[in-house]
């Protein structure tokens, strides 16, 4: 390794206070007389739009605990409570936290403890999401609303699924939110959120353009950290301000020709498939950057409202509008979560972001993406000559992550890229 590569991280320090504020407000919500909803999947927007309801996004909590290195203790509590280790780590994390509350177990960092919910909302892209809501319902009696969001196999199925999901949301979810919050569902608020969110995401997408540049000016990891404002502060001024600042930083970098990797940009541009490994972001980067490799794009972060142009905040039926975005808008977001649409989506990202190689992150306890990954790699390798490998691990459970395995696999991928370049 003759060149000494180093990462030139973007300043994402604005995220920390914003994230802390979100969770603090959630912890204080009940004292302020608010109701609390826990939600998984994209239906989060409906509770979020309810003014006297504080919303806890379950995957966000996992990212929060993982990023703050608080996950292992909660996972241990889950195990003590009887959870089996092959169970999805996000499930274990939530039941672990609730076990800590129920049993009054000591906790090193009190920030892991959240108020018990008044309502559970599961948007079942992944069927497992509902399983942890069911478990919480069984143990604590919290009302659970489970909405089925099938991942489509064929595009012609999308309109039918869209109607089914809309019917469920209107028949079941909205009345439950109204009952729990004690007020009529606030459509104007939902419109306002979509309007502001759309505007923020247009700026965010301008930032993405700088990932397309060679050399890239920032990394997928910087963006991974920056997802928080999009989600926790959806439609709020601070989210907008965060992205305005990020864009300014990137424009400055562009003007001064400062790449994300010193001294003169990345040698390998990698695609990342699957969830981000929240508790191990640094670990992964340390294995990649010394080789001049950085992650540039990925399927999961693109879930966060990637096509702001697809939503119409002024649509007559605003409740349906979000589901239309998921299923039948031009970019049919939900289609990309299954392997059928996923492959098509990955191919698009590979071209747009000039990818050299693909890392498919396969979580040992989350089987959301991993069943089709090997086949997708095979198809893409044949078609584009871009090599890919699978790396195994977990987003937050350190007992499932082996650094040696990761190192060997990442190095193997880089060698494959080199071999194709020769």
């Amino acid at each position, binding site marked *: 390794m003759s060149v000494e590569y180093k990462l030139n991280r973007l300043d994402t320090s604005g995220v920390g206070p914003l994230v802390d504020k979100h969770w603090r407000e959630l912890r204080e919500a009940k004292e302020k007389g608010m109701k609390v909803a826990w939600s998984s999947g994209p239906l989060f927007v409906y509770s979020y739009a309810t003014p006297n309801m504080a919303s806890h996004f379950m995957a966000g909590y996992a990212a929060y605990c993982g990023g703050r290195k608080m996950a292992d203790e909660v996972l241990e509590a889950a195990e003590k*409570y*009887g*959870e*089996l280790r*092959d*169970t*999805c780590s996000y*499930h274990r994390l939530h*039941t672990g936290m609730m076990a800590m509350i129920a049993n009054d177990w000591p906790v090193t960092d009190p920030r892991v403890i959240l108020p018990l919910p008044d309502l559970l909302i599961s948007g*079942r892209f*992944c*069927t*497992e999401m*509902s*399983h*942890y809501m*069911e*478990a919480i*319902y*069984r*143990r604590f009696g919290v009302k*659970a609303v*489970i909405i*089925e969001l*099938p*991942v489509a*196999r064929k595009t012609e*199925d999308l309109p*039918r*699924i869209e109607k*089914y999901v809309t*019917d*469920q949301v209107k*028949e*079941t979810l909205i009345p439950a939110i109204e009952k729990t919050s004690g007020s009529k569902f606030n459509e104007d608020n939902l419109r306002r959120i979509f309007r502001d969110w759309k505007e923020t995401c247009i700026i965010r997408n301008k930032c993405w353009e700088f990932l397309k540049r060679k050399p890239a000016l920032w990394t997928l990891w910087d963006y991974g950290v920056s997802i928080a404002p999009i989600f926790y502060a959806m439609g709020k001024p601070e989210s907008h301000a965060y992205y305005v600042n990020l864009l300014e930083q990137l424009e400055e970098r562009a003007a001064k020709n400062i790449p994300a990797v010193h001294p003169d940009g990345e040698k390998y541009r990698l695609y990342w498939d699957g969830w981000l490994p929240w508790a191990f972001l640094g670990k992964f980067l340390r294995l990649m950057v010394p080789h001049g490799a950085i992650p540039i794009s990925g399927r999961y972060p693109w879930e966060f409202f990637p096509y702001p142009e697809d939503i119409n905040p002024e649509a007559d039926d605003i409740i349906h509008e979000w589901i239309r975005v998921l299923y039948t808008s031009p970019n049919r977001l939900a289609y990309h979560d*299954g*392997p*059928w649409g996923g492959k098509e989506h990955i191919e698009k990202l590979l071209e747009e972001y000039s990818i050299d190689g693909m890392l498919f992150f*396969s979580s*040992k*306890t989350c*089987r*959301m993406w*991993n*069943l*089709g990954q*090997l*086949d997708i790699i095979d*198809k893409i390798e044949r078609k584009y000559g871009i090599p890919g490998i*699978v790396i*195994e691990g977990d987003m937050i459970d350190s007992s499932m992550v082996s650094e040696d395995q990761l190192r060997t696999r990442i190095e193997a991928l880089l060698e494959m890229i080199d071999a194709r370049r020769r």
Partner: protein
Amino acid sequence: MEEMMKEFFRYTSDPYRAISEWKDASKKKVVGVFPMWLPEEIIHASGMLPVVMWRSNEAITWGYAHVPSYNCPMNKSVVDDAVKGKLKFMDGMVFLRECLQSQEVPYIIENNACPPFEEYLYLPPIYHGDKASKGFTRDEFEKLRAGLEKFTGEKITDEKLRESIRIYNRNRSLLRRLYEIRREKPGILKGRDILRIVWASMLMPKEEHSKLLEKLISELEKKDYVQAKGKKVFLSGCLCIHPQLELMDMIEALGMLVVDDDIYVGYRYFANDAQLTDDPIGAMVERYFIKTPVDPAKGEVELHWGDELVEKVKKVGAEGIITLLTKYCPPHLCYYPDIKVKLADAGIPEVLIEVEHEIISLEGIRTRLQSFKEMIGGV
């Protein structure tokens, strides 16, 4: 009796060969259905033989080029068999969205070993049993009917559907009778034999299975019964796959008698009938939405699998429960801790045995079962 059993065993000893032989002889087509809740009657009414896909009898090898090892044995096995070409005799395959893993299996099948007919049903769970879900399920069943009609060129009339429902109900009621006999006379048949009888019903034509089973039942009803020795136990879980026959033998060798179960290749498969009404598709939808036996993959939040087990164990006088957990099966993994608590609260002894594709450590299982036996009394 042995003759009848031989026929059941022929199917379960080598299902690949037995079904292929049936196909050659009958000149009919075969459609594999993924467990657990596809309406086989619709396929039957199309004139083809629906067979429930099974865990194979070989180690997973080629399948690992497509599925990670930490996925459930059902998925690994179907993919492995398919890519090895062992399922070529299937003219069709039907899949369903029943859990996170099963929803992606068809992608691998389509890419590597797609049969001439393939269908995928987005069957919803039964959470609210609401209008939307029932309507959507009905559309899915109709989609299967239309797809099959196109494939065979034959109309599937309501009359044909009703006839298939009648044949399936008949078989289900016979299997329930077999279970009743076992409850009354535990040990009258070996655990492995009962398992193979139920499994055979998933593999062979229902009409033939029912004929044999009817004869077997009348023999069993006449047979002198000597009270078998052993502690009565209830088998629970084992979603989608059949447990290893060796496991059934081991339970008995350790002095326990299975008196009842809620496993998939068991009571779960034949617990409920579809009504014979003017609207056969509607009747199958209603059957799909029946909430018991509680199924973790179908998610019913108002009922508790643990309560159901407590009630069943008391009813059949079992002294404990052996839980068979299909390894890496999220619906069961997520539910199990709550079942365990319920059983502990009710003072019902229970032991957990994980069932992988292949038994990894018979000795480990023996030790666990041995301690369980000591716990429920007796050495």
